């Protein structure tokens, strides 16, 4: 034996101890197998009702709980006093709890998100200034793919706390087109032309009917809003086409879309602008 260390290694290899180790190992292996079987079975039963996300979560939860139980029983077999261990675990939990506030908050937010289902995998959502398609809803975060193919991770807490817009929840979507025409134009005629363009476009829905709203006498033009509906999947295509079709129809009918206008005037107290007339050169 090593003289300065009061340790008898042989003590750890007595028959009782060895039996204990063996029992512990058996308990651990058995526990692992049972955990796997039970979690698999429960998931198979629940598969119909739960989403893929939920099922995976449940399986992991059951597996690790049962494994932890098996580990504790194994430790018991090895002769550890569980009471002390649990006490230490309790203190550790508090410490970890404080440290992992954010993660816990994210985790709980995630559970609420899964239960509430404001959006599902495949929807397109907008959070703050990020718009993207939902790839996964994980324990702590939601993963998005933006339209320029970037990968964005948004913590669940942010989603629960802030406003999230689900762009693909409803089947049809309205496009609000801002149109401005020169002051000299006849508004009734413009209105008729806009409705004719909407009528002709096959992607633009007949019902709900397009909406014509006069928004105001602008600085340079008469401002109006022409709102048209399309099936959500066709929205972008319809919106692009219809802007071009409106321009073409305006051109055909001689309706002017004015550039920004700025009027100078000298007013009554100032001198008039000097103006010099220049003759056109002979052609």
């Amino acid at each position: 034996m090593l003289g300065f260390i009061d340790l008898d290694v042989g003590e750890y290899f007595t028959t009782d101890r060895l039996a204990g180790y063996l029992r512990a190992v058996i308990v651990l292996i058995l526990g692992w197998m049972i955990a796997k079987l039970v979690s698999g079975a429960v998931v198979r039963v629940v598969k119909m009702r739960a989403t893929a996300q939920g099922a995976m979560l449940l399986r992991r939860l059951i597996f690790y709980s049962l494994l932890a139980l098996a580990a504790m029983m194994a430790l018991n077999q090895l002769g550890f006093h569980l009471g002390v261990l649990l006490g230490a675990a309790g203190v550790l939990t508090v410490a970890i709890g404080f440290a992992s506030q954010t993660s816990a908050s994210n985790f709980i937010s995630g559970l609420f998100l899964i239960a509430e289902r404001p959006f599902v995998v495949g929807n397109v959502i907008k959070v703050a200034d990020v718009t993207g398609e939902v790839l996964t809803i994980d324990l702590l975060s939601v993963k998005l793919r933006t339209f320029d193919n970037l990968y964005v991770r948004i913590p669940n807490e942010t989603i629960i706390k802030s406003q999230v817009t689900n762009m693909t929840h409803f089947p049809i979507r309205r496009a609000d087109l801002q149109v401005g025409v020169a002051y000299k134009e006849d508004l009734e005629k413009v209105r008729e032309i806009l409705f004719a363009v909407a009528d002709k476009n096959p992607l633009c829905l007949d019902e709900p009917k397009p909406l014509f709203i006069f928004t105001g006498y602008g600085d340079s033009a008469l401002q109006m809003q022409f709102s048209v509906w399309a099936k959500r999947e066709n929205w972008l295509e319809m919106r692009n086409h219809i802007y071009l079709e409106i321009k073409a129809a305006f051109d055909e009918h001689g309706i002017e879309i004015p550039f920004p206008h700025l009027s100078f005037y000298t007013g009554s107290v100032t001198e008039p602008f000097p103006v010099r007339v220049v003759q056109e050169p002979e052609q």
Partner: protein
Amino acid sequence: MDESKAEKPFWWGKYTIPEDEAGHWRIGPLDLWVYRSRHEWRIASENSDDPLDGGLLVQVPLAKDLSEDQPNAHRFGFRKTKGTLLLVPTLADRSIVINPATPFSLLPDEELTIYVSTALWVKIRAGEPPHDLLEIPTYRPSDTWFGPSTREGELCYAGKTGARQQLENLPIRPHRALSAVRVRNLANSNLSVERLKLPMPHMSLFAAGGGQLWTETVTLQREQDGELAALQLGKKPPSMITKPSLISGPREQPTKGLLIRAFGGLIGRE
């Protein structure tokens, strides 16, 4: 039925196109060219803007050769093409919403039959045994939404032409299908008919003697207790059509639940 003739009402049916020759059809607003080569059928089409465009022309075989850059061309490869081409008229692939130009009201215990026409689709089939190659609308109607709100409903086509009440006034239009819709009001209050949805995917197409294509009769009945009953599809076109022959069956078989749901939003209220 497979010789080149112009202006005949029956544009549908079997055609024989020799190798390296083409066929041209003008079916209402649709211009259709089909070109057969040894290993390929090439189909090109063009639509005009007027749904009531009545042009009708069949040129088979076509003298001139089709150039490579036809509008909207589709190509189908075959080990070896056989000369038979089938043109089958079919109904629209979505329900069609009809808005009578002037909404009418039915008094209690009254009934009315209106006739509506809808655009036809042309199904092109080739090969032995015949396979569907392509389906082209004679006229692509506008999309529209039919449902209780913008949150739920169904995407349909908008039937632009109005609903007529006099059968005698209806011209024969071989590129459109006619449907007789019978509306009956058995309740004690007026029934206002502003909007009708015809479930085209569940309906069949029949040919009448003169070349007009009809669907089966549709009956909408408002029961005495004010509730709208299920829309009923008849078995065949109106009885005045002598010896209708079935051209194509429904795309989808109607299920009971589907009909009741279709009817719930069928007649626009308020």
